[in-house]
């Protein structure tokens, strides 16, 4: 029998109502044996006291219910976004607020490349820049002897230099939608949408399909999680091959891998038997740190991209309604099939029309194939209000709201997409909790950086980039937000029996914090330092 370790902390916030706070937690076999004071495990036998965490505040390891492992692939490239960002190795990359700074960072990166390497940058976000538009001329000034490619944060655009244009033969005669032009008809370097971007990506080796499940990237993802206090994270909409799934299973299996991965895979099968068989194959690979079992469905697009399906009165600029990724008839058919197969679904719905259709489909599926414990999750669900939340509650459906949007995109939603009335009730955490729902909140990393304390800060304060409070009535309390990033998210993953709180019987997964989030000014929540994590009782080096 392995030994008992009793960790001492300045304070332990347990998320267990039976013992909300403590100073010591005893761990055996990777699980919590007892919680309380220094003597809490004495009745279990000889204990070893560990004071490495003595000055810290422990919380249950945070649970990121909506992230993507592909984040780490982008860090192969140079970050040129508007917002500050930290790479997997902990190096901060300050946000760049004008084009001169973007070009300077690109020059710097170009100087460090091998002779034939293309220069690739990511995260560029011109909506926040007031300076002139980025063009091929700017990028030619960085380097003319190799392709330069700057990916925009939306994922739908890139800007490239003349060498990249020449590599794919784009010129004034090219008859390709998506090649943006100067007044003289020559391409200006901006390429819109995948069809026009793909020839460039193909030639510079940008193929993410299987990369994010390879060892080096899986490890880097672990470092990102540890830095933000996350001990369980999803890889939502993972399109896995058997080979990729095996690589992921191997890379996450070592005892000190710092995070439990919950992939929700995309599936193309069209019968319950086929999906069941696919999931059974994947589940064979499961272990402590890897949990295949759920699927992800994409229904509509994004609100800021005007591709979310929204109800009347639509977009304030009169843009046409958004795009279905799956037509409603197929949403119905797929929900029924998954429900019949007994497979939990994480369903991307941004607009309120999409959320409505999904709830209709889930209601029909529930009537046809009753499954009280289905616990499907509406992901993003950014425009759901009390009426839709009530329907979700009736169906036992959970929501995972995109709280980070309030800060990153809230001003734009008020000014440009859905207007202030509906923006003020976006990501309506208060209404969701009042409806009695199981609620998580998320970053959608890499769309916004992973950081559950930042996400909690957003839900508590609802501040936008310009400093306004967007819909104060939807603010939630700090304890509610902390619950959402631990137990709430664990419940959406059906893992609340194992993780999400610090109590006897659960896995010894902790977030190690420098201060008590319940004691500080809620406006400082996002700045509260995370010192590291404990996973299965293994203390990961303090940062």
């Amino acid at each position, binding site marked *: 029998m392995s030994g008992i370790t009793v960790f001492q902390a300045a304070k332990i916030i347990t998320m267990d109502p039976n013992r909300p706070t403590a100073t010591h937690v005893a761990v055996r076999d990777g699980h919590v044996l007892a919680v309380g004071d220094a003597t809490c495990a004495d009745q279990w036998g000889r204990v070893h006291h560990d004071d490495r965490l003595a000055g810290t505040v422990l919380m249950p390891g945070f649970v990121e219910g909506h992230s993507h492992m592909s984040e780490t692939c982008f860090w192969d490239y140079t970050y040129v976004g508007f917002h500050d960002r930290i790479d997997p190795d902990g190096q901060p990359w300050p946000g760049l607020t004008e084009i001169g700074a973007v070009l300077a960072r690109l020059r710097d990166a170009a100087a460090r490349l091998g002779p034939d390497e293309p220069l690739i940058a990511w995260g560029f976000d011109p909506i926040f820049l007031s300076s002139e538009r980025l063009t091929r001329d700017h990028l030619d000034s960085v380097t003319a002897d190799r392709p330069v490619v700057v990916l925009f944060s939306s994922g739908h655009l890139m800007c490239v230099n003349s060498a990249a244009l020449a590599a*794919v033969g784009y010129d004034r005669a090219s008859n390709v939608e998506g090649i943006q032009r100067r007044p003289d008809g020559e391409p200006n370097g901006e390429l819109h949408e995948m069809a026009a971007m793909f*020839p460039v*990506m193909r030639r510079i080796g940008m*193929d993410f*399909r299987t990369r994010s499940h390879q060892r080096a990237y899986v490890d880097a993802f672990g470092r990102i999680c540890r830095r933000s206090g996350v001990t369980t994270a999803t890889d939502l909409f993972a*399109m896995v091959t058997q080979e990729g799934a095996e690589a992921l299973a191997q890379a996450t299996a070592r005892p000190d891998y710092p995070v439990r991965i919950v992939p929700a895979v995309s599936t*193309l*099968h069209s019968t319950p038997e086929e999906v069941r068989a696919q999931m059974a194959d994947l589940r064979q690979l499961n272990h402590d740190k890897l949990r295949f079992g759920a699927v992800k469905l994409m229904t509509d697009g994004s609100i800021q991209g005007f591709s979310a399906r929204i109800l009347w009165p639509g977009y304030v600029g009169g843009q046409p309604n958004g*795009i279905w990724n799956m037509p409603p008839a197929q949403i119905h058919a797929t929900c029924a099939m998954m429900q019949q197969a007994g497979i939990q679904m994480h369903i991307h719905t941004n607009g309120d029309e999409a959320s409505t259709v999904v709830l209709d489909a889930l209601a029909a599926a529930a009537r046809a194939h009753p499954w009280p414990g289905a616990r499907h999750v509406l992901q993003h669900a950014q425009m759901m209000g009390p009426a839709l939340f009530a329907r979700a509650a009736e169906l036992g459906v959970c929501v995972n709201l995109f709280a980070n949007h309030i800060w990153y995109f809230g001003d734009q939603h008020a000014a440009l997409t859905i207007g202030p009335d509906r923006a003020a009730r976006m990501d309506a955490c208060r209404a969701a909790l009042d409806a009695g729902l199981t609620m998580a909140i998320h970053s959608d990393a890499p769309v916004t950086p992973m950081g559950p304390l930042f996400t909690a800060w957003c839900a508590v304060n609802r501040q936008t980039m310009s400093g306004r409070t967007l819909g104060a009535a939807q603010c939630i309390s700090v304890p509610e937000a902390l619950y959402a990033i631990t137990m709430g998210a664990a419940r959406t993953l059906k893992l609340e029996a194992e993780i999400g709180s610090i109590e006897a019987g659960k896995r010894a997964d902790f977030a190690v914090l420098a201060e008590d989030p319940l004691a500080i000014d809620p406006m400082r929540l996002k700045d509260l330092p995370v010192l590291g994590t404990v996973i299965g009782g293994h203390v990961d080096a303090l940062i």
Partner: protein
Amino acid sequence: MSLPRLPLTVIGGYLGAGKTTLINRLLREDHGQRVLVMVNDFGAINIDADLLVSADGDTMTLTNGCVCCTMGADLFMAMGDALDRRPRPDHLVIEASGIADPARIATAARAEPDMAYGGIAVVVDAMHWGALADDPQIGAQIRGQVAVADLLLISKAEDGVPPALTARLAALSAAPQIDIGDCAAVAPLLLGGLAPLQGKREGGGHPAYVGWSHDGDEAMSRAALAAKLAQAPQALYRIKGLVAAPDSAGWEVQVVGRSIEIKPALDRVARTRLVAIGPQSAIARADIADWWSQG
């Protein structure tokens, strides 16, 4: 010699319109081309066991040299895989998912230097399209598919295409409307090949197509060629081939419906060689020959 460009044809149309039926027909027809077909889901692809060489998880290889595979995680990267196959397939056919905008996919063939634009064929279900096009939730996307089509293939029109449907489609698109129930073969529509006219048996009794081929020594500038193609008889479904040029390597031509695509040829074109097809009911071989030969 360079590898020939890979032509891409995208098949669009709503769920149940008949895309899979069309693909099953294409894979069975005797068109003599090594076609790579990428589908969303194997479920509905239905190939007789005696036509199969092998079938593993996501790829089926047929005795006629065709391959059918699923597109996997990333459609565009899967196109890259198709380009990297050796030998390179003669033609790539992609089935767009039911609600997808087929132009979003087909544009890649215009953009990618190693591909040729083989057109967008949208399958329109004569019985249900009208209701779908009026649906408040998906109508705009359904009408959008027709608007970007180069060929409209009407399915399930056992009693003929209703004139109201014809008029509605025509208001959205100038693409030729073809009742696929009437077609002896679908390969000429999708691939632009003329296999049935090259010594092979023509389809049962009523060949729906008339074919034309040309071999000459004319050389044309891009502008002259574009002007010529713009005047091609309206009824032609497809024109493809290589055209010599006075002061460059020459041109590669793909015309599908109203879409005209001219790319610089990869290797020097010694002689101008073109093939074209159209519906026998609307055009005669002599009409096509006249159009090409007129100054």
